[in-house]
């Protein structure tokens, strides 16, 4: 990336002279592009197609959505930018990176909005729609001029593009067309495969008829032609066609597909951003697999229906986000108490309360662990990549059934809407196995025939002759009879708790990226993985003694952490949730409210684990993490 930006600015300095020579080709290992428009102008579609094409050509890629803050922001407003940001490179791309190198903007206001958010690299190339210069509305013309003045304060290379004018040659309503023109420009700049692009356009618009498809292709070609004629640079991001088959999708699609792959039969949900799109996906295809998406009247009913299904021997899950998780807590405690397997997906968003519904955050960890009243031992795990969004469904089902408990899988808005190619899963028919048959049960066998050492017991479901019993959320003995005596309750708690120790004993210590001792160990969980590892790699490249490790099981935690931590002078977590900074007013070592994984690790290991965390409503940037790493290292060795 460094290469690229330098090349681009060199280019800029060379100016007009270059035009004669044909386009200069700038070769970079990876780069970041974004396309941003008013909402409704289709920048998102353009970005999706472009990202998919990059992936298909053999680039690593990571696409994130740019979502406006308002339902219907006014046109040409800073807060209203909608679109996509695609980071792609020769190697695998694991996160959204730091800053955008090239942006296509449909008006100067959304562009300024992105600049205010710090989205652009200092030397970014900007392709900017320029119809506003001659707009009939005087206010708009003025805004345009002031906008340009503002832009000139930066070091960007601004290229004005008459997108409106060009598109009007083909269509009457440019609101549904300019995006394809922009796609065409990008196709030329980055030399993307036209056939693939047409294929993706077909994929997006095939439902709307041949006509619409053709118009879109025409617009795309017009953009391509315009760029070819008018631009004096192209950017080459070498592709390495993959030797293993890959798929590309977003995290919620991966969750949905994982639900199917895991052999689930019911996804019981209530709509909530950013989880809903997983059920949109399932709503579309699940019936073909014999599966049902049940949209319940609320989150409580949603989890209740899933528990009813699981109690009766089926494989069920519920998918939600923070506020929904809060509502489900009472029922989750019941499932733990009844030992009914249940998979819960929490696609985390910004909190607390309604918070930032469309934005990424990792602040539901503690509530996932401790949100049920009473002692309700269960499993909490997190997906770190889109790949893991898929596979965690299979793991979660397996654990939920083997340990007859609740498994909460945490993902977040970053994974949910991020798009990344990953190795195509090898689907296994065993994942589809029914959990239990209806064989008769001897009448003298209790429904909770706990193994006293492990707390494990066989499952029992309606339809099994001789097995009749009443599941109850009241304290009960092995016969599922209500039992309030001290021994029964202590024993029940014990049996439920021991399962966690047994599960933990089967987990592997997390792997260390980098040396297994050194000055600093950075620990993360969930969607920050790519950004943390990139930051650590960069730090190591600079000669710093930093390693990282990433935790999949949050409860129970994997073994070996304390020992691992002891080999580093400092340990810190990097998370997207709130923590006080050590030097905040009134904040002391004692009262500092630390990040959520940090708290879990301190309790478990007694190591003085530090944290660096932010709640920007966005994924963290590797560059910012790198800065935090350096700052921590400068603070020197801890006691």
């Amino acid at each position: 990336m460094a290469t690229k930006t330098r090349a681009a600015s060199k280019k800029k300095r060379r100016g007009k002279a270059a035009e004669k020579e044909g386009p200069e080709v700038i070769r970079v290992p990876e780069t970041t592009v974004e396309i941003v428009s008013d909402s409704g102008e289709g920048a998102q579609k353009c970005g999706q197609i472009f990202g998919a094409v990059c992936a298909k050509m053999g680039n690593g890629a990571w696409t994130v959505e740019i979502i406006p803050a308002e339902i219907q922001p006014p046109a040409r407003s800073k807060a209203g930018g909608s679109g996509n940001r695609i980071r792609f490179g020769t190697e695998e791309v694991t996160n959204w990176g730091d800053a955008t190198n090239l942006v296509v903007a449909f008006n100067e206001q959304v562009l300024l909005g992105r600049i205010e958010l710090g989205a652009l690299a200092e030397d970014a190339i900007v392709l900017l729609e320029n119809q506003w210069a001659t707009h009939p509305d005087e206010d708009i013309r003025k805004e345009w001029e002031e906008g340009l003045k503002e832009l000139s304060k930066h070091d960007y290379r601004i290229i004005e593009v008459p997108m409106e004018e060009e598109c009007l040659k083909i269509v009457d309503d440019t609101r549904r067309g300019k995006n394809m023109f922009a796609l065409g420009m990008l196709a030329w700049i980055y030399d993307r495969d036209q056939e693939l692009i047409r294929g993706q356009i077909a994929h997006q618009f095939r439902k709307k008829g041949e006509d619409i498809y053709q118009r879109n292709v025409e617009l795309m070609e017009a953009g391509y032609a315009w760029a070819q004629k008018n631009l004096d640079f192209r950017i080459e991001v070498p592709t390495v066609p993959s030797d293993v088959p890959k798929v590309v999708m977003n995290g919620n699609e991966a969750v949905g597909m994982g639900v199917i792959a895991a052999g689930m039969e019911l996804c019981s949900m209530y709509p909530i951003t950013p989880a809903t799109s997983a059920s949109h996906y399932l709503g579309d295809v699940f019936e073909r697999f014999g599966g049902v998406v049940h949209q319940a009247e609320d989150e409580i009913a949603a989890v209740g229906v899933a528990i009813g299904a699981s109690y009766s021997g089926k494989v069920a899950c519920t998918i939600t986000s923070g506020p929904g998780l809060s509502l489900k807590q009472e029922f989750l405690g019941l499932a733990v108490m009844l030992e009914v397997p249940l998979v819960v997906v929490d696609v985390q968003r910004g909190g607390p309360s309604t918070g930032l519904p469309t934005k990424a955050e990792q602040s539901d960890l503690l509530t996932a662990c401790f949100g049920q009243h009473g002692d309700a031992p269960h499993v909490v795990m997190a997906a770190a990549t889109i790949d893991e969004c898929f596979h965690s469904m299979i793991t979660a089902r397996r654990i939920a059934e083997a340990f007859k408990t609740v498994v909460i899988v945490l993902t977040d808005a970053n994974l949910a809407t991020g798009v990344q190619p990953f190795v195509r899963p090898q689907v296994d028919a065993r994942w589809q196995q029914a959990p239990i048959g209806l064989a008769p049960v001897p009448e003298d066998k209790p429904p909770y025939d706990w193994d006293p050492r492990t707390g494990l017991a066989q499952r029992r479901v309606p339809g099994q002759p001789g097995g009749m019993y009443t599941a109850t959320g009241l304290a009960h003995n092995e016969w599922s009879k209500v039992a309030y005596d001290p021994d029964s309750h202590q024993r029940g708690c014990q049996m439920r708790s021991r399962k966690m120790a047994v599960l933990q004993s089967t987990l592997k210590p997390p792997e260390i990226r980098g040396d297994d001792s050194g000055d600093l160990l950075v620990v993360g969980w969930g969607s920050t993985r790519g950004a943390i590892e990139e930051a650590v790699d960069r730090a190591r490249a600079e000669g710093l003694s930093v390693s990282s490790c990433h935790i999949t099981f949050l409860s129970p935690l994997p073994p070996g952490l304390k020992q691992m931590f002891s080999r580093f002078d400092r340990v810190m977590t990097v998370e997207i949730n709130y923590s006080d900074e050590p030097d905040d007013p009134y904040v002391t070592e004692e009262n500092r409210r630390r990040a959520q994984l940090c708290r879990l690790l301190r309790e478990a290991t007694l190591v003085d684990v530090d944290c660096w965390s932010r709640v920007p409503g966005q994924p963290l940037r590797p560059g910012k993490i790198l800065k935090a790493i350096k700052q921590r290292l400068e603070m020197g060795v801890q006691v």
Partner: protein
Amino acid sequence: MTHYGCSLLGCGVIDERHFDMDDYQGAIARWCPGCGDHSILTAVQRLLEEEQLKPEETVLVSGIGCSSRFPHYVKTYGFHGLHGRALPVAIGIKLERPELHVFVTMGDGDCCSIGAGHWIHATRYNADMVAMLLDNNMYGLTKGQTSPTTPLRFPSNTQPHGSYLRPLNPLTATLGVTNASFVAQTAEWIPQHLFETLKAAYHHKGFAFIRILQRCPVYTSKIYEDAVRSPDLIEMLIHDDGIHIPDLDQIYKNQVIHDPSNLNEAYRLAQDSDRMRIGIFYRNEGLPRYEEVRRLPARTAEERVKLLNEELDRYAV
């Protein structure tokens, strides 16, 4: 009765078991002496016997309350869940295992207060099950607090100076919901009527909602006293398509002929609170049932794997 016919194991042999009342006997019921729940328990067990429902294919679901202890006392599968949340669980069971017979018992607090949202929506889903509201006009288990059906000015522990609101009418509330398909009222102290109502509900294809007037000698002994003693205070809805028990004609002389297919009339009769009416207010078997509407062709593991690979192809790079 310990030999299981092989049909359950899928080997096609006919299940020759016969079940008698004892086969449905769970733990000993622990309600207060004189509690109306006892007679409801008996009626349900009688129904199970009369219909020869297999204990292992019958599931009783409840919430929390005195009435919700019900499943413990019947030897079938049972689910004694959370206060107010019996219906979602029952729907989950019926949706995924439509071959099971599902009965739900709820208290008036359970169903009409904390569970009101689920009650409305379960009515609308119209999944095939029997939903019994054991209405003692009070919170029993928690020792006497006002419930939505507590009569106006009747004292309780939370409202010792008498309840502040007129009681909610569970019948009109249910009738107000689209897809309501079976709405009836009966009283536990009229066992024949209770039994016939249960039976009609069981045979109804859809969500059969029965409000059962239930005495709680501990907290609301006075409420139904008069009606128990004076059958004249009760009006029976009778009809060829409804419930008519000739044996009771001599006792319950107030009768009104009501065609259960007439929704507006059902609402009118239910709404008018001058009389205590029992019988089937409304029945409509023409409404789609949720588990039917959502029923899908079963897929084998292999089919699913094949389809999933096709699906992955769509996302292939």
